[in-house]
């Protein structure tokens, strides 16, 4: 029986790693622009379809697509920010929510129209390969998704810490007017932040295509999980989002065993969420006022 819990723990960590990359994108966009992107999961869905069709139609391996997706989805995010999001930056949250929620519905409908409502999944030769650790089994594709996601989170964090652009992004997140005063091009920073956020979530989706199905309706679940994680980790806090994601992954996975029914696994996550909101509204890892 202990094997079962170890298995749940490990698979929870693996999926939690992917959640981290999804949440990091969301928290970056929120931190810099103060906008909640309700269409976040739909960009994940588009990433998954990109990997699916690249593999089925062109024979491109999903991991290759993940590399190509970085510039492509960065550009997509940049374009979406420049056209749709820019007019609502700094406006009331209600307007921003209506816009991103509308975008989410539009993207779902578009996917359904273009790709059909059918569930589809990739059949890859290597998808069945598993590694065994202490009586548990983990698919290599899940390990790869975890490793790529964690690597990208680290890379993003280093980028924000070490480079001038990264520091400028952090400055925007801290203080809009102050960064304007020292000559930072805010509009450009917004586009970069949105582009990076979208690239992150799209790659998270792509790393999951070898083991998960693709469907137009897959996005909202991930958007919701990412919200919970971002709140857990502290809004705009990247290391916090990573830690929050791993916690949520494990709580979901082990929760499915501990709760009377796996249907209640989400309950465990939301109970944690509410507890954090009540007792540590700044998030588990956020500092007050972040």
């Amino acid at each position, binding site marked *: 029986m202990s094997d079962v819990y170890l298995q*749940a723990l490990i698979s929870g960590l693996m999926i939690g790693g992917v959640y981290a990359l999804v949440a990091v994108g969301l928290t970056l966009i929120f931190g810099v622009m103060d906008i909640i992107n309700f269409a976040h999961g739909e960009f994940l869905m588009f990433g998954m379809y990109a990997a699916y069709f690249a593999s089925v139609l062109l024979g491109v391996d999903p991991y290759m697509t993940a590399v190509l997706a970085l510039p492509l989805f960065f550009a997509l995010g940049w374009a979406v920010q420049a056209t749709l999001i820019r007019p609502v930056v700094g406006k009331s949250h209600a307007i921003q929510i209506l816009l991103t929620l509308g975008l989410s519905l539009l993207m779902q409908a578009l996917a359904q129209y273009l790709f059909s409502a059918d569930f589809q999944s990739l059949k890859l030769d290597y998808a069945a390969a598993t590694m065994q650790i202490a009586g548990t089994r983990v698919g290599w594709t899940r390990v790869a998704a975890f490793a790529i996601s964690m690597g990208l989170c680290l890379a993003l964090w280093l980028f924000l810490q070490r480079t001038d652009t990264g520091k400028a992004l952090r400055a925007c997140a801290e203080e809009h007017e102050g960064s304007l005063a020292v000559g930072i091009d805010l509009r450009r920073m917004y586009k970069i932040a949105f582009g990076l956020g979208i690239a992150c979530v799209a790659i998270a989706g792509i790393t999951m295509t070898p083991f998960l199905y693709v469907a137009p309706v897959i996005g909202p679940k991930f958007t919701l999980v990412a919200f919970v994680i971002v709140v857990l980790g502290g809004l705009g806090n990247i290391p916090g989002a990573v830690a929050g994601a791993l916690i949520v992954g494990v709580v979901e996975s082990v929760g499915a065993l501990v709760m009377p029914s796996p249907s209640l696994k989400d309950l465990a996550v939301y109970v944690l969420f509410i507890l954090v909101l009540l007792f540590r509204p700044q998030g588990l890892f956020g500092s007050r006022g972040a």
Partner: protein
Amino acid sequence: MNSSTRSAVLAVSALAFAATLGQAAPAAAQDEVPVGILLPLSGSVAPIGINNRRGHELAVEEINADGGIKALGGAKLVLIDGDTQGNPNVGISEVEKLARRDVVAIMGAYQSGVTFPTTQMAERLGVPYIDPVAIADSITEGRGFKYTFKIAPKASWYARDQVRFLVETSEAAGEPAKSVVLMHEDTLFGTSTAEGQVAAAKEFGLEVLDSISYPKDTADITSTIARVKDLDPDAVLLVSYINDAVLITKTMKELDVNIPIIGTSAGHIDPAYIDNLGKDADLTFTVGEWNADIDKAGVAEISARFHEKFGVAMNGHAAETYMATMALRDALERAGTTDRAALRDALAETEICGDANILPYDCIRFDESGQSPDAQMVVLQILDGEHKTVWPPAVAATETVWPVPDWSAR
């Protein structure tokens, strides 16, 4: 508006009015027998309703080509459509309309939620009502209706036949199954079916180690599958939609869980299950209503004609609606009249057996409640990427692969 346009408008209105009059006039010329078809032909379930109608259409075409109803001087069957739009209230008023158009009987209505109230209206109006597809137990249970005839098996028989298959097949292989784990998606479809499975397992002496409900849009089901592996039952009975069915099979392979999968139609009978899993779909079992490969004379020919006429494969619904029409023909021949009460009495005496019945059991009959008591499901196994009938033995197309080999041995 000048006078010439005005008179043109008047003329058009008069024509339109005349056309409606023509439509409303009883279609029952002496050489035609109107038959009411009550199905959702528009709305969200229309594709299924339209497919159900094809079975009726093919049967009517064959009957008329064969000289119509001989006891009525070769009268031809004519289908009169009543569109329920998938809505019970619309269905009830359509029954009244069909009754006024002198249909001898009504066949429908695919959805149990529509069939239940519309059979009530038909009972009140004294119109024989044949239910080929709608499965809810409540349609024939405890109502004492005289005019309802249900060819469709009861919903609870899905679970019964799933469990019977497991017990019989494992006994035949010399290692009787003792325990099962149930997994079902957590909406009404899953939970209500699982209740039936628990009852059926108890009836056939199988121990239910656990009954697990899961959310069907889950992204990761590993820990639940790890639990199933730990419980190590002789089979896992699933009630799944397509995406979760695929995810569960994938995860079982990943965790090297070597337990036979027995699905409950829905996701596991969907061709997309095979498309998504490729060769990993092989050896999965599922119960179903019917399959075109069942071992009965005439089935292959009828399904080929169906495919030729409509361009799609014949499925269980179409086979059931086809047989409903054949049962009506049989009753009309014996009644020798279009009188509804006489036709009802003839239907109650129905006995269509052997190769005349393309459904996977011997005889279509109706008991006191109007239920076809011998109705049963088939069990299909996916072999080389195709659903093949493996149970019951009387109609099986091929041998069951049991015990199911381990993933590593495939």
